[in-house]
Each structure stands twice: as C-alpha cells, then as structure tokens.
C-alpha cells in the first residue's frame, strides 16, 4: 500500500498555513492547491508572473495569456496580480515565498535535491527549479519513496546532477513524512501498515527518530 499523488498532495496541503505564499512545481505538486484546508487562504505564485490565480477553466474557455508555469490555463480571482519575470524571481530568490513544493528524482539526507537532469543524454531543461530551491523559506519535496524499479530515491548522497545543495527541509513521500535536520533524515510520520524496518529497507540512508512517529493517515482520494 502507498499513497497516490493526490494523497501526497493532500498531506502536503495540511502544512500550508493561512496567508502563506506558495509555489507549486509543475506536475503532481500542482494538485496541492486543490486540497487547501477550509478556512485557510494560501496565495499561489507562478514563475511566469501571477500571484493569486485560480483553478483551471473549463475546456474551451482557456485564455492563453493566462497560464501557469506548466503552460496550463488558469483563471483570475479577486486580488490576482501580474508582474514581469524579474519581479517574479525577486519574489523567489528574495525570500518572500513561504513554501515551495517540488518533485524529485533524488533527495539526499544533506538536503541536496536532484530534479532537473537524468544525465547527459537528451535535452537538458531546468526552468525555475534552481531558483526556487534557494528562495522559499521552506522547500518541500513530494515524491514516490522509491523509483519505478524499486530503488530508493532518498539517499545519503544524490547521484544525479544537483538542482540545489542543502535546500530541502521536508519530504512528503508515498510512504512517509520525513524532515531533514542537521544533515539527517528524521522520520515524522509513516503509513501505519508499514514497519520501521520495512520503511528503512526502502530508504537509502538512515532514518533517525526524534520523538514519536505519527501514523500517516490520509483520506481516500
């Protein structure tokens, strides 16, 4: 048993506080916006120059001047603001974002992240990921705990080209919630059906304990 991407997104959304400015990476992290707890208002930032945009419009109602960083159509909400790219990345690097939630190929216990290149083959593409990892006050990763062929994605050291050094502070995986503190993975929550040893065997670095480990319980989504 493991969490679906929607369930990982739900769990990540529970940690976003009222009034937070949040950037969600292209792909699965975008789903976090759908699971904001009632009564909390987060403002979403997209690299191409929008703060406070709304959900996707119905098919056929797209305005292609109103898109997010993934080139998907979004909508206006009361209070939306537009700005150019230099201002957008001033928000990022300047430490004005509270949270960025990104995907990952690999995360190291040092907080290093690899999520932009799988090696020298193919066309490299980085987008805004290298900026985001150095800007937001909290950089979290949402990822399957292991690769498609069962290899750990949480490692002592990344093997793929780095996106950033020592930047990740929390991992929402398909099996656990893990903080990165002082160069160590600290287990905070795990699926109740999973033993610590079983989780450790799926993880490429030591999972440390610092207080009780809570059950990772999410709704059916």
């Amino acid at each position: 048993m493991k969490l679906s991407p929607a369930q990982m997104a739900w769990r990540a959304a529970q940690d976003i506080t009222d009034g937070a400015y949040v950037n969600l990476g292209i792909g699965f992290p975008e789903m976090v916006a759908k699971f904001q707890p009632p009564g909390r208002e987060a403002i979403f930032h997209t690299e191409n120059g929008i703060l406070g945009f709304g959900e996707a419009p119905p098919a056929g109602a797209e305005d292609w001047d109103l898109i997010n960083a993934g080139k998907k159509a979004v909508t206006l909400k009361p209070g939306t603001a537009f700005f150019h790219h230099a201002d957008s990345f001033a928000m990022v690097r300047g430490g004005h974002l509270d949270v960025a939630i990104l995907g990952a190929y690999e995360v190291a216990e040092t907080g290093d992240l690899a999520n932009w290149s799988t090696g020298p083959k193919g066309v490299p593409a980085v987008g805004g990921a290298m900026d985001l990892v150095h800007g937001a006050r909290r950089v979290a990763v949402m990822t399957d705990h292991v690769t498609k062929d069962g290899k750990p994605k949480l490692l002592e050291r990344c093997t793929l080209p780095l996106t950033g050094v020592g930047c990740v502070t929390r991992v929402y995986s398909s099996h656990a919630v893990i903080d990165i503190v002082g160069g160590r993975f600290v287990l905070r929550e795990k699926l109740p059906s999973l033993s610590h040893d079983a989780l450790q065997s799926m993880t490429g670095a030591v999972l440390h304990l610092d207080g009780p480990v809570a059950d990772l319980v999410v709704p059916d989504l």
Partner: protein
Amino acid sequence: MDKTLPDLATAVAGIRDDMTVMIGGFGGSGAPIELIHALIDRFVATGHPRGLTVVNNNAGNGHVGLAALIEAGMVAKLICSFPRSADPVVFTERYLAGKIELELVPQGTLAERIRAGGAGIPAFYTPTSYGTDLAKGKPVEVFEGRAYVQERWLKADCALIKAHLGDRLGNLTYRMAARNFNPLMCMAAATTIVQVSRIVAPGEIDPEAVITPGIFVQGVVEVPDPAQEEDLNRAGARYPLVAA
C-alpha cells in the same frame, strides 16, 4: 516623434545575420508570432538573416513561431531555461544532431541577466545554481556566510516583443501573464521592435498603467487579433505554409 512602423516587413528589416535577438514570451503567452513569421518570410525570400542567437525562455512548440524560426534553419544558438514543450520535436532533433547550440540558464537567472543588461549592470551574484553543473567555471563569492555565483548581463542587438496597447512614443501595456520577459527584453536590446494589438494616441494609456516606458522602444507595429501559439498548434498549423 513617431515610432510606429507601417508593416511587419519593415519592422524586421534591420535584423541581420549573426545578430543576437531576444524574443519575448513564455510558451505562447506574449510570443510575437507575427513578427517571427515576418522574419521567416524575409529569410525565405532572401536567405537572410541566418546564424541568429535567440534568447527566449523556451525552444518553441510545434511548427509555428520560434519553432518555425528554428525549423527554417535561421538559429545557430539558443539561450533559454526550458527547451521542452508539448511538441518540442523541431528543437530536439536539431539539438541531438548537433545542429544548434544550447546555453541553458536557470529561469530567474535568465530574467535577471536580461534585466541587468538593460540596467547597465555587467554582473551580479545569485544563490541560484550554486553547487550545480550550471555554475561550473563561474566565480563564486561568500556574502554573509552564504555562497553566490557570479552571472553576467545579457544584451541583444534586437528584441521582438508582443504587447497589448502601444502609442507612437513607444509606451506599452501588456495583457495578463503575456507580460513575462517582454518588459525586460525591451530594456536589454539596442533595437526593440514591438507588435501591439492596437496603436492608441498618446495619453490614451493612463500614465499610471504604462508598463514599458517608450524610452525602451524603437519601433511599434500594429497587429490586430494576434495569433496565439496554442491555438495554432491545436489546429496543426505550420509556418511557412509550403505546399508538400
């Protein structure tokens, strides 16, 4: 003073071989499709310009706009952050065949290098890319205990820009998120050519609403109802429209 231009062909007439050309837009939003296609028309008719270095966030999508410029064989080098798209086949094939050079730049660094180019700042330090392959060979300095990478300004011979309203003085507004890199590129090019959906009389744009002041603009051409890259791609469009 009148910066308005009579037509698209006149607007792109000054772009010569081997120039560096900044092209505004993020994906299709804010992409000056008609100016790009006018440049392709000139290449088809005259064989020039060629050997261009193009600065854009992306590498084109489908077979229109920037992708068509690359497909025509006019681009020697691309400086961008994200050369992938829904249909990146034109760039991907040329890149993997070694027929086009790529300088990959993190998106915020790309924006700031362009801004710096327009603002007269030759270099700056950013935390972005520190410790990664994209920082290799670049000077690093520690400020207040944290390491930063030196990046250099980026300037261009010409910028091709899409805006919403413009006046004969070159003052511009943009439509929603079509702003993106456009105002920065206006500042960083020796010659900035802008296609606008409508040319209005000076004063019709509220001075409070001007996004790009006219000092950064050299030419304005009106293109009512400009094409959107996404719409063209959904319709399977190609440029130029050659018979098979």
